[in-house]
């Protein structure tokens, strides 16, 4: 159809970058909890795509990018400490809350973020792709190269593990 061009075509390449780079960067961020690295790895993955653009039809670009990014992650940031930052979206309501409530909220947040950081990398990645990005099982399964059932299991397990961490107070 319209995909006669390979990725070497600059417009095709630019479109791929615009469509895929945010999600690719989130993917590495979910795995690593490292913002700067997630940025570097995303750029590097696109550089590799450009270097190999003759061999890769645009339809294969997505899986190529995720594979490359995952390899780069394994080489560079795996085994480093995972730390996420959270937006303070509840700020507006803080004044209305009792100190007791605020303390509980704070403890809840700390507990949950620690639990997220302690999830296995594969569970966390699948879970955050689903919850944060709203991706469906199907797409997650494609990206991770696993079955939808396996993707669902990772997400379930992650959710249950997080639930237990907040309920066992």
């Amino acid at each position, binding site marked *: 159809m319209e995909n006669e061009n390979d990725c*070497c075509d600059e417009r095709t390449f*630019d479109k791929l*970058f*615009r469509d895929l*780079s*945010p999600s690719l*960067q*989130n993917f590495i*961020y979910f795995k690593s909890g490292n*913002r700067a690295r*997630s*940025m570097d790895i*995303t*750029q590097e993955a*696109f*550089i590799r795509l*450009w*270097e*190999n*653009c*003759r061999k890769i039809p645009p339809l294969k670009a997505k899986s190529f990018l995720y594979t490359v990014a995952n390899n780069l992650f394994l080489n560079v940031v795996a085994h480093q400490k995972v730390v*996420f*930052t*959270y*937006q*303070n*979206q509840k700020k507006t309501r803080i004044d209305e809350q009792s100190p007791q409530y605020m303390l509980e909220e704070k403890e*809840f*947040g700390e507990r*949950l973020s620690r639990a*997220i950081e302690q999830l296995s990398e594969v569970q966390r990645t699948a*879970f*955050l792709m*689903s*919850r*944060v990005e*709203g991706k*469906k*099982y199907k797409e997650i399964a494609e990206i991770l190269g696993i079955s939808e059932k396996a993707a*669902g299991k990772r*997400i*379930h397990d992650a*959710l249950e593990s*997080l*639930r237990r961490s*907040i*309920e066992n107070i």
Partner: protein
Amino acid sequence: MKKKDLLDKWLNDELTPEEFEVFRTLPEFSSYQKIDSFVKSIDLPRPDREITLKELKLKLKDANRARKPKVRSLPFIYKVAAILVLAIASYFFISNLEVSHRTDIAVRLQFELPDRSQVQLNNDSRISYKKFKWNSNRSLALEGEAFFEVEEGETFSVVTDAGIVTVLGTKFNVYSRGDSMSVSCFEGLVRLTKGEVSIELTEGRTAGITNGELELGQTYVSRPGWLYNESAFEDIALRYVIEELEKQYDISIITENIDVNLRFSGSFPNDDLEAALQAVTLPFNLNYRIDNKNVVTISGAYGSE
């Protein structure tokens, strides 16, 4: 519907309103919701896509990686042509590579040519030659003075501004400064060519060119004097002797009231300035004065002529 299926549908955003009513009655529901809203507050990196795209483009250019995929294989004939061009270019490059040896004032140098011929280079002199195919083209350029002990082989040429010296295998000295030169043959046969004129020198013979004039002479030593730290001259104008003194001792010589075209035969030592000055001035009955470390004045005898 089982709890797991409800959960799957909730996670995939596929619950119907009725199913959602069932789902929210689950005891875990409130935890799920809390987790869900907390996780959604993860602060995602949201770089400006257009800016990062520009950065990426710069990186691609910078690393020159952008051009890499565009390399296309050349037709075979171009590859052959490219290799030929490279080969020819490097042949010319190598064949024109010059080796040169140079000495400063008051310095001497001994070295070997590729065919093991020996060269001793006197002070303030320069020799250059092409190493490539030396054995079939033994030719070097000389400015200054050098003594050669040439191994047998193809014709050996010493090219100077004043003339060309060619030999087959021999020992000889060539002196060439400016447009004056002299050749002394110590062994074998030496040919000196100046334009159309060519002359052969046998052992013990010397020839010089001064102001375009060819002069013949005789030497009685087996090596040029400068090799033994002596500068020897056979019937040479005094001004060349004085020039040589200046070079050997790195001094300036001022001449007063002397005819510098007087002919000098003899030698002076290269390591004793007083003795050298005496050797040069005594035969002409001249006076000398060492003004300071670098300046010497030679003057005609008071009241002479």
